[in-house]
């Protein structure tokens, strides 16, 4: 198995931070707010590896730090501590020591992100096709016909009617917007894809279609993915391995089947029990 991403001791603290921050927060204390300085320890000491074609699930309640972890990896936010190494075909990138230009370069050329809210990932002022074109143009494809063909190909792949390629995403339903967002993220065949609560807020049949699509993409392109969700069903269906987070800490990690069938941590047990 080829490693794609290696994350070690990733931490993110909002606020001034103090010596007691890490010792006095976490699931044992039932909070991620430091009592002495008031900083929020959004995520602390997160370590994991991700291999080619693998889907890693990050599960937890809202505020547990799962989205924060992904946002630091996609450079939306700066981490406080930790390291992350991205293994590109024959190069390695130490993600957090890159300069802003290199970060933007990786973001545009090697990573894909699908946000829960399509307005973060899509430009609503241009057509669905234009959104995909933007990503292709960033990758120096300057041929109108080829861009157009690729946009149509991606939209039909994500089951958006090709007749609507020139419509603005604002005219689409939530599920369709999400599929356009996935098409945009996939436009450049990124080796690493981040999915942040992609199915939250969609109705069940649309959820199922999008989850199917994600699985197909994984099989077809061997894309490594990190799926952030609070939905146990999504984790069960997609993820091979799972991290369970609470109050900014990873409380349990392992094969998804194992975590769900035989939860060790009290919080995971509660989570699994409440779902069943």
């Amino acid at each position, binding site marked *: 198995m080829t490693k794609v991403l290696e994350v070690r001791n990733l931490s993110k603290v909002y606020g001034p931070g103090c010596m007691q921050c890490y010792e006095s927060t976490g699931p044992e204390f039932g909070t991620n707010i430091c009592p002495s300085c008031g900083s929020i320890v959004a995520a602390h000491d997160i370590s994991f590896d991700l291999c080619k074609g693998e889907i890693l699930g990050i599960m937890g309640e809202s505020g547990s730090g799962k989205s924060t972890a992904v946002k630091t990896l996609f450079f939306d936010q700066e981490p406080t501590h930790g390291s992350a190494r991205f293994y590109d075909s024959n190069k390695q990138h130490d993600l957090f020591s890159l300069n802003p230009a290199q970060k*933007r370069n990786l973001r545009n050329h090697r990573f894909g992100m699908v946000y829960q809210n399509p307005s973060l990932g899509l430009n609503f002022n241009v057509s669905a096709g234009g959104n995909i074109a933007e990503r292709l*143009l960033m990758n120096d494809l300057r041929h109108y016909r080829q861009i*157009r063909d690729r946009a149509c190909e991606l939209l039909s792949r994500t089951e958006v009617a090709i007749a609507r390629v020139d419509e603005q995403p604002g005219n689409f339903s939530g599920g369709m917007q999400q599929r356009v967002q996935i098409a945009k993220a996939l436009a450049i065949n990124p080796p690493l894809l981040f999915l942040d609560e992609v199915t939250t807020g969609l109705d069940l049949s649309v959820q199922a279609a999008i989850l199917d699509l994600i699985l197909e993409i994984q099989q077809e392109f061997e894309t490594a993915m990190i799926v952030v969700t609070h939905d146990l069903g999504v984790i069960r269906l997609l993820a091979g391995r799972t991290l369970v987070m609470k109050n900014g800490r990873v409380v349990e990690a392992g094969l998804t089947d194992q975590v769900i069938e035989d939860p060790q941590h009290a919080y995971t047990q509660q989570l699994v029990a409440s779902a069943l």
Partner: protein
Amino acid sequence: MNTSEATQFGFLDEFAKKEIRRTVLKAIAIPGYQVPYSSREMPMGRGFGTGGLQLTLSIIGRGQTLKVIDQGSDDSVNAVNLRGFIESVCPSVNTTTNTADADLIQSRHRIPELALTENQVLVLQVPYPDPLVIVEPSEEKRKIMHGEADYSRLLVKLYEDIVHFDEVTISHRYPTCINGHYVIDPSPIPRYDVPKLDQSKALVLLGAGREKKIYAVPPFTDATPLVFDDQPFHIENFIDQDGQRRACQQCGSTESFLDEYMDAETQTLVFQCSDTDYCTRYLSSRNNGALHSNTELDNSAEAVELAND
């Protein structure tokens, strides 16, 4: 306005001129890069060509010849006022309407039809210097985009145009890449004039007074309009319904940029050269040619041909 001895030559004080000259040198050294400068208050509102005016006043020297045009015309309000002002503050500067005679040409909205030479400088007045402003409101982010030559979002704009209208609909201010990196807003010149920037023999300086930016297209520098590989750049072709190139109704030239207007009396569309100097010269050379042909039979056929064009 009287030109008393106390008036500084060129209106601006020497420090202001020096700053602008230094800015110009930087702009030439980094083709297409928008160099900020302090843009002094001028005795006219910003937006009336103060950027171009400050450039002209800073680089014009005694005994030089200046031409000022607005939309191709030497006689429109903006041109007349700017010329009058420069004449009053630069006593030893000559003004002309003849493109070939001018050392310095300050222009708004047009590049003269007559090809400029190595000895000439063209100063263009710019209202909006940054082509990225239509896709990115934050100047900080625009600067990063310029630095990384990230013009993908401008190209998305072109993509959308082709999708909706089958062609790029930008008629003027066409984004143009200078020397393979920076994309500039070449001021509101029509598409017709953009190819004249490419490998131009004359230095082209662009000044935005309100936005406080100066940039340049140095002589013999590549200027490529932003396009897709399979969608070539088109200039206005002035072809009528019958497939004929329209001619100027005044001088008959079929090789100039034409203005289109409605004749108030006849209620018909009229096409006329936008460059008045070119139009007058073309007309007089044609008339001379016609006179000439009365005496020399050899040339008569050619003159008739020319007249029929």
